[in-house]
C-alpha cells in the first residue's frame, strides 16, 4: 500500500458508511422507477418529458458524483474546478437546442 512521493492523500471515503451507500443506491433505484413510470404512462408531451427526465438524471448524477465518486469529500478547489469546467462545456453544447425547438415552434424564433 505504498503511495508516490509528494501525494497528499485525502481519505474522505473512509468516513463514509455502508449505510450511506445503501441509501444512495436506494434513492437512485427509486428515481429510476419514477422515470419509468412517467415514460410508461406518457404523462407529458415530448419537450416537457425531456426537461423532466433531464432534471431527474441531473439529480441522479449528482448523487453518483457526490457519494459514489466521493467528490463531496474532496478539496473545495477540486470540486469547483471539475464541476465548473464540465458544466460550462455541456451548457455551451445545449445552446443549440433552441434551434431544435425553433423548427416546430416558429414563434420561438427571435
Amino acid at each position, binding site marked *: 500500500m505504498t503511495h508516490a512521493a509528494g501525494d497528499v492523500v485525502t481519505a474522505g471515503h473512509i468516513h*463514509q458508511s*455502508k449505510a450511506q451507500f445503501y441509501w444512495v443506491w436506494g434513492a437512485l433505484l427509486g428515481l429510476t422507477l419514477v422515470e419509468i413510470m412517467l415514460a410508461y404512462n406518457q404523462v407529458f408531451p415530448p419537450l416537457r418529458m425531456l426537461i423532466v427526465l433531464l432534471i431527474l*438524471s441531473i439529480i441522479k448524477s449528482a448523487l453518483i458524483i457526490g457519494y459514489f465518486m466521493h467528490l463531496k469529500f474532496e478539496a473545495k*478547489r477540486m470540486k469547483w474546478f471539475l464541476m465548473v469546467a464540465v458544466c460550462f462545456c455541456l451548457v455551451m453544447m445545449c445552446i443549440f437546442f433552441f434551434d431544435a425547438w425553433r423548427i416546430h415552434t416558429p414563434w420561438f424564433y427571435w
Partner: protein
Amino acid sequence: MADAVLIHQAHGEAYEPSWFRTYSKKIGMWLFILSDSLTFGALLFAYSYGRISNPAWPTPFHIESIRNASIMTGFLLTSSLTMVMAVLAASRGDRAWTRNWLLATMGFGAGFVLLHAAEWNKLIDEGLRLPIFQTLFDLKPGTNPEYVAASRNVPQFGGTFFTLTGMHMLHVTIGIVYLGVVALRKIWLPILGLLAIACWWAPGPFHYGFYVLLIGLVIASIVLFLKPMDYSDHDIEVTGLYWHFVDLVWMFIFPLVYLMSTKITH
C-alpha cells in the same frame, strides 16, 4: 519557486504537494472523465436534437425493450454499489473482500453487456439498421415493418442510437477488462483470452466483442508484464471512478434514448 523546491528536496520530498490536495492518479482519472464526458455529451446532444426537432422521430421501444433496459439499469446501479464496497474494503486493507466485490462488479457489468448486445441483436434482426446498410432494408420474414420504415425514413435514428449505445457498451467492456486486471492480475489474461475466443463464434454483435477483447488482452498483457505491481487502495479508488462514470453516462442514456422513444400500447 526554486527555493520552495530546494526546501522540499532538503526534506527528502521530490515533488511539491498537489494543488488539489489529492494524489496524481486520481487527478489524472478525473481529467480523463472530464474529456470523455464531452464525447458522450456531444452524442447525447445529437440524439436529443433529432428527437425534438423531428416530429416523425421513431419511437420503436415497446414494453419489452423498456423492461430490458430497466433491468440493465438495475445491473449498472448495483455494480456501482459493489464498486464502492470494493473501495471501502480496499481502504480497510481487506484484500479478500476487495477482490470479491470487484468480481461482483465485473459480473453485473458483464450481465449489462450481455443484455445490451442481445437487445441489439433483436433490433437488428427485426430490421433496425445503420444508414450505410441500405441493401438490408428489404422486408424479409421476421422483420418488423416499423423498424424497416424507421431505418429508411429517419436514418439519423439508427446512426445516433447505435453510435451512442455502442460507445457506452465499449466503455463498459473496457471497464470490465480494467477491473479484471486490478482484481485478478495475471490470472485474468487466460480468462480474457477464452472470452475473446468464445466471442469469435458468437452471433450478431457479440462477434465484434472478439476484437474488443483481443485488443484488451494485448493492452492488459503489456501492463501486467511490463509493470507488474501490487495494486493499492488508491488504484482501486481510481478504477472505481472510471466505473462510476460509465454508470453515470447510462443515467442519461436510459431516459433520453429509451424512455423518450417509448411506444406503450395499453
